[in-house]
């Protein structure tokens, strides 16, 4: 009932019902990627049931049946292994109810519940994925839902095309208003936090290094993160995106020490403030300001140019001058960072960390240990020793390859340094740190990414998984931790250009991919375009939060104040409403009466105030006679006015038209003023 006293048709038509089902299906389909797939058949069976009921072939299910179905559904969700208290569970329950509702949609009110729940589920879909494709699909689902909302309210059947078109037009016209709200509406900090996903895949670099890992990663062309530099871009060979520090070597695998291993434990001891590592840092050189958007990795490890001195965003300063996300990165996350790569770190190292940086397994790799000791004895200084080792890599027949031979797991360092001499960054970094430690120089393996691909379209640097890299850090007296990349001795192209250049001869770049856009030159151009679009999407749409909004508004308005924003938003609203009015034809002039008729009507109104009412049956002449009889004082004016009006009505003369209108106006004002 929209207006009191007017009953409303409560039933949904058959066409409306089908619409609703189509909308439900379009909302649920993409969610099946993230939630139990069997929810889709549940919807289809419910729908089929409903259609049978509508056609009179089956009875409407009773409350017992519906109760039993609900029980089975919830049991099914629990059996699917979804945690009881989680977003997945909430979303699945919403989906289940949404699917079951198809059985009992009879009245318009049920249909409305379905559509509104559908809108919520589109929101849930955006929790799982925020890619451009998902967003586009969300718009489609919204169009379907709105079309269904239109369809279920119709009593008479209308074509599906016209409903869909109407819904699309309405949403399209809404777009500008939505954008204004999106840009200007205030954003709030979370009111409370909820666990997002209960299980998920991890991608990217793992927190330990067995030589095979990075080789596998180098076969992936997925995006790890993208970087926008606020000022000049540093040289390619300076772009060492430092991730985690690996101190513990068991003879085969480099990993973190047990107490460092769990980022969740570590996070508890870390702080958001830079101060707890400030005294270990001697800040030098120029700062580099940049924004990074990390793709979802499911991990907390973040990659940045070390050491990060200032950060804005959901991250913490780590113990080893790395940064760690406050929560696992499950959706794209943006940070604003300032790094000072020329700074000196840990010039005076704490004893415990010193010991960690010298750890070696008790036995194994005897030849390498002996080699290190021998070379160290002949060297004049630690620097000299490092140079001689690096020289060995450069001058010996070491070979950079993504297809290294298998090494003896007991003596992997010996096997690599003395026999195969074929490997990639993990082998070089690992063997180098081993030699350093064997000679008593504190050293550690660092893994992260090196380089990146500059995208001219979007003016940003895209770092892909195949840019994964491992290098070493050595502690030198008075200089702190110094970065040394033994790989650059063997394959300078890896660092100067990229992996593809380094293994060009070998042709092993992304060789595991049967179809790779990166390898094909033309497709690579397309891929870069897509990357650029995606980057902008991430940065300007998904990353539009309180900080971005403040920055954007400042750039847009110069000065951000409530008054300013009110003026701009008010103007935009007016413009939008004007556009709507024009598009919808609301300003079309209604056919108006000719001016003489309007003047005559006014004349009648004035006389009515003076006590003479014109009945609809009276002609102007009759009315004139009555009026002059009752108001002798106006005799002349009224007669003249009526005459002029009659002339204009029955003998219109274009030439004197305006003149006569003027006469009428003058007489009218005279009659009105006179008492």
């Amino acid at each position, binding site marked *: 009932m929209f207006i009191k*006293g007017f009953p409303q048709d409560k039933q949904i038509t058959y066409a409306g019902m089908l619409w609703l089902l189509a909308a439900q299906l379009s909302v649920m389909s993409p969610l099946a990627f993230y939630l139990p797939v069997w929810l889709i058949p549940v919807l289809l069976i419910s729908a089929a049931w409903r259609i049978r009921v509508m056609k009179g072939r089956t009875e409407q299910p009773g409350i017992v049946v519906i109760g039993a179905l609900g029980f089975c559904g919830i049991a099914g969700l629990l059996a699917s292994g979804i945690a009881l208290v989680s977003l997945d569970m909430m979303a699945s329950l919403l989906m289940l109810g949404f699917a079951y509702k198809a059985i009992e949609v009879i009245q318009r009110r049920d249909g409305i519940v379905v559509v509104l729940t559908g809108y919520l589920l589109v*929101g849930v879909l955006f929790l799982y994925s925020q890619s451009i494709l998902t967003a586009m699909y969300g718009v489609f689902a919204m169009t379907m839902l709105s079309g269904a909302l239109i369809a279920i309210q119709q009593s008479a059947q209308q074509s599906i095309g016209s409903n869909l078109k109407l819904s699309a037009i309405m949403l399209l016209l*809404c777009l500008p*208003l939505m954008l204004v709200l999106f840009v200007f509406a205030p954003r709030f900090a979370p009111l409370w936090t909820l666990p997002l996903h209960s299980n998920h895949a991890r991608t990217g670099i793992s927190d330990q290094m067995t030589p095979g890992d990075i080789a596998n990663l180098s076969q992936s062309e997925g995006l790890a993160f993208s970087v926008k530099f606020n000022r000049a871009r540093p040289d390619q060979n300076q772009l060492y995106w430092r991730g985690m520090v690996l101190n513990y070597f068991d003879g085969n695998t480099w990993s973190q020490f047990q107490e460092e291993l769990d980022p969740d434990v570590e996070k508890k001891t870390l702080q958001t403030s830079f101060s707890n590592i400030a005294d270990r840092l001697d800040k030098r050189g120029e700062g580099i300001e940049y924004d990074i958007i990390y793709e979802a990795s499911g991990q907390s490890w973040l990659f940045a140019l070390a050491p990060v001195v200032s950060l804005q965003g959901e991250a913490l300063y780590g113990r080893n001058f790395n940064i760690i996300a406050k929560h696992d990165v499950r959706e794209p996350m943006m940070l604003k960072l300032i790094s000072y790569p020329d700074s000196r770190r840990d010039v005076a190292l704490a004893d415990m960390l010193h010991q960690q940086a010298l750890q070696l397994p008790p036995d194994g790799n005897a030849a390498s240990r002996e080699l290190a000791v021998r070379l160290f004895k002949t060297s004049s200084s630690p620097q000299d020793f490092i140079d001689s080792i690096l020289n060995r890599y450069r001058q010996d027949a070491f070979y950079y390859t993504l297809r290294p031979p298998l090494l003896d797991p007991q003596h992997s360092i010996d096997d690599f340094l003395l026999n195969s001499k074929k490997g990639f960054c993990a082998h070089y970094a690992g063997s180098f740190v081993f030699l350093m430690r064997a000679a008593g120089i504190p050293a550690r393996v660092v893994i992260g990414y090196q380089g990146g691909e500059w995208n001219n379209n979007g003016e940003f640097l895209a770092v892909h998984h195949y840019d994964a890299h491992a290098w070493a850090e050595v502690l030198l007296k008075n200089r702190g931790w110094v970065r040394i990349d033994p790989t650059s001795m063997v394959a300078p192209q890896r660092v100067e250009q990229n992996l593809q250049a380094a293994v060009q001869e070998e042709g092993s770049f992304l060789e595991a991919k049967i179809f790779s856009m990166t390898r094909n030159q033309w497709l690579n151009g397309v891929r870069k375009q897509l990357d650029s679009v995606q980057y902008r999407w991430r940065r300007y749409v998904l990353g539009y939060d309180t900080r971005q909004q403040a920055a954007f508004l400042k750039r847009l308005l110069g000065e951000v104040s409530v008054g300013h924003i009110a003026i701009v938003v008010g103007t935009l609203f007016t413009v939008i409403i004007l556009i709507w009015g024009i598009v*919808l034809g*609301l300003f079309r002039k209604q056919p108006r009466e000719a001016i003489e008729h309007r003047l005559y009507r006014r004349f009648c109104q004035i006389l009515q105030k003076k006590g003479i009412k014109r009945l609809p049956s009276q002609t102007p002449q009759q009315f004139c006679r009555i009026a002059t009889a009752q108001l002798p004082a106006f005799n002349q004016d009224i007669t003249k006015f009526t005459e002029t009006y009659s002339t204009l009505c029955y003998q219109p003369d274009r030439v004197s038209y305006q003149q006569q209108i003027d006469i009428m106006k003058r007489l009218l004002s005279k009659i009105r003023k006179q008492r």
Partner: protein
Amino acid sequence: MPIKALSNVWNFALNAWLSKRFPDTREITLDIQRIFVIPTRLSAALLFAVLVLGLMAINFQNSLIYGLSFWLLALIVIAIFFTYRNLAGLTIRAIQSQPCFAGEKAVFELEVRCPDNQTKTAISIGWPFQDVETVTLRHQHSVHIKLSHSTRQRGRFKAPRLTLFTVYPIGLVVAWSYAALNLESIVYPAPRLQDNADHQQNADDHAMHGAESADGSTDFAGVRDYRSGDSPRKIHWAAYAKTGDLYSKTFVDYASDERWLDWDALPIAGVEAKLSHLCAKVLEYHRLHYQYGLKLPGTLIKPQHGDAHKTTCLTALALFGEHR
């Protein structure tokens, strides 16, 4: 009780304002000054969904969900314009009305039309708790509809303001307007025979009938005993020759079929009861194809027959007492 009184005062004030704002006319075109727009309960439900989405957007810091909620908000706003457009420009005109008997429904014929190149969909026109018609103008320029309104008492029935409303397309918003058309219909008294009066009246009829027939001279009606004073021309000489008794021939005029329905002659108490009775008699005489006349205080309708005459008589009964 005070609330009830207050709402009565409010309704009275509202009605006074509305009738000032929308004076009666024969034809009304709905424009921006006449159309009211207000969100429906569906809008409130959608706003609730937007609120939930907003909380999701805030807590998960999700730009896309922000966008979705803003889009739905914008949908409510644009629905105002669409719904308004569906009603604006519609013209409604009173065509004619059909009279009825008190307690029955008066039927009004209306023309609904819209400007060229426009379509109007699912517009409901009617009175609350009365008749409603839903009109869709797609390919045709205008359409005629019939609406009925119940009546209670005889007289001139003036239909209340018509309500026109639409929620098309999306039901989030209702646009409505009032059309105070000059919709007037004559309501005849409810026909109700009073038994005792009928008897009297019948006797009366007969008396009148006799008196009238005595004067008749055109058509032969029968033969009766001679009474002194009968015209010699009417003596049935043939019968006299056979029987030796004098008989008179009787004649009737057409006018002798005339019956008068006389207000003053009715032994019924109460004006309305009398009118109801007369109304029933008019219908009866009309059905029997009598010629009948109607005498009301201040009104005299000469005997006639036919539909037009019936209408005249019924109208006179309906409007009895109107001018005094």
